[in-house]
């Protein structure tokens, strides 16, 4: 009963204020956010906070540093608007299409992310082949070796904090492959912590962002002096519209590469582990039917939606879901909501490991779809394969949820910390 009431409040069918008043009237103690966890059936569950708004009107509203955002919640609207780069542009002031906005902490334009067609396509063509390297067998072998070593090192450890001791090192080491940078660089990146723009907590932190920017500047200067086989060198030797990329353009691509694949990959890895902890039968199934792992990865991306939303700036007065939107205001494409749209996904709130048709937008959609998706997919595929091969079960000891506060909505996106024990397959 309590769980039902909790879900009613959580999903917006019953306002928190009414609920508390009601509790007072009948003399019942209202449960609060701290006890929420008890009302989740499973710790690995990520509830869908958007359902009611998605069904009722199709959009939601959030304020963000006085630059409000109209969030599009339905899959069809999200896809259509992602495709319509003329009305919903990415090439706005740098940082503005990110929610929360990064306009106050950076001036560097991320490329190709904050550029629109036709220039976007030319930039994208420079980096696309490089970002498809994860499909090469030798890349996959190296990634497998990295993940295998990492897993061997934590098996049967009594108390492992997944984010800092597993997901962050995994993500950082894998990034050395994507950049073709020395393995030792990972140590530097690990020392930065989980988010390169935010310190612990929510607030955007310009000091922290500067650590990354200064590091990238140094690396670009190094590559100018001593060109090598790494990504900085590749970019410095590439041309846009017949001219060599400037240092600022190279920096724009590198900032995107560092920032875009950090907390997203960490959330995907961490949520996968918590799911497997509560579903040991999934590990067993991966052992028996390894061919479903590719489908499972897509399903995890749909369900976890590691990036909740991405913004666009509206170039002309328009409307979405019969709601007027003014030129120069912001909308967002809410991937997390679109991925639970019951008009497209059967049982949207369940993880179906071998979901056969899964047109999710977890990696975005259209021109700006995730450049790092090939790398991310390989990380998850190899991780699931490796865990199936080595791990019998995972036990969650303790965890703290990471909740995004989006005004109307509160979305659990993963964990701030999660302590587990991996039991090895003997």
């Amino acid at each position, binding site marked *: 009963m309590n769980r039902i009431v909790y879900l009613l409040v959580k999903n917006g069918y019953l306002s928190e204020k009414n609920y508390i008043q009601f509790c007072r009237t009948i003399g019942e103690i209202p449960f609060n956010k701290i006890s929420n966890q008890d009302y989740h059936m499973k710790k690995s569950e990520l509830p869908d906070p958007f359902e009611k708004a998605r069904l009722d009107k199709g959009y939601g509203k959030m304020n963000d540093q006085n630059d409000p955002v109209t969030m599009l919640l339905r899959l*069809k609207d999200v*896809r*259509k608007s992602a*495709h319509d780069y003329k009305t919903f542009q990415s090439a706005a002031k740098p940082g503005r299409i990110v929610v929360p906005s990064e306009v106050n902490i950076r001036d560097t334009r991320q490329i190709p992310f904050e550029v629109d067609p036709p220039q976007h396509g030319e930039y994208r063509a420079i980096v696309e082949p490089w970002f*498809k390297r994860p499909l090469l067998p030798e890349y996959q072998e190296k990634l497998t070796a990295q993940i295998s070593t990492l897993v061997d090192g934590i098996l049967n450890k009594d108390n492992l904090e997944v984010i800092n001791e597993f997901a962050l090192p995994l993500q950082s080491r894998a990034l050395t492959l994507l950049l073709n940078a020395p393995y030792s660089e990972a140590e530097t990146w690990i020392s930065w912590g989980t988010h390169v723009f935010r310190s612990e907590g929510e607030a955007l932190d310009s000091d922290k962002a500067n650590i990354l920017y200064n590091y990238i500047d140094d690396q670009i200067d190094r590559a100018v002096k001593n060109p090598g086989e790494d990504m900085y060198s590749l970019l410095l030797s590439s041309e846009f519209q017949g001219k060599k990329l400037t240092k600022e353009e190279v920096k724009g691509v590198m900032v995107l590469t560092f920032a875009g694949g950090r907390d997203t990959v960490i959330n995907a890895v961490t949520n996968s582990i918590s799911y497997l902890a509560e579903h040991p039968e999934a590990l067993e199934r991966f052992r028996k039917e390894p061919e479903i792992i*590719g*489908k499972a*990865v*897509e399903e995890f991306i*749909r369900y976890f939606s590691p990036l909740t939303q991405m913004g666009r700036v509206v170039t002309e007065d328009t409307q979405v879901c019969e709601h007027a939107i003014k030129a120069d205001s912001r909308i967002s494409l809410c991937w997390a909501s679109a991925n639970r749209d019951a008009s*497209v996904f059967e049982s949207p709130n369940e993880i179906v490991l071998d*979901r*056969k*048709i*899964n*047109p*999710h*937008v*977890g*990696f975005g959609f*259209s021109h700006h*779809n995730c450049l790092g*998706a*090939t790398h991310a*997919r390989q990380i998850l595929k190899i991780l699931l394969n490796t865990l199936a091969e080595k791990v019998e079960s995972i036990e969650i000891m303790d965890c703290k949820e990471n909740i995004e506060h989006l005004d109307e909505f509160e979305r659990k996106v993963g964990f701030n910390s999660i302590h587990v024990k991996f039991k090895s397959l003997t």
Partner: protein
Amino acid sequence: MAKITFITSDNETITLEGTSGSVMALAVDNGIKGIDGDCGGVCSCATCHVHVAAEDMDKTGSASEIEADMLELDDNVDEFSRLCCQLEISDSIDGIVLKVAK
């Protein structure tokens, strides 16, 4: 056993034979240019877009609603468009010709 012919964007013609699985997987395994199959065949990436030869449409059938929604926003879409991850290899599609969209 089915023979499937791919015509790539640089007009190379390749005929492959398959017995099971999806046409996308067959193409990816054989390195057909322009068919990436990034999502592994769950209809989420639209990187396996082909145009079915008009005379073969009765063998393949047309796109399902979800598939059509994915294709709708693709610049090269026409009434012969399919995502070939949604085409299962079987005797019934033997001899079809697919033009790779990208």
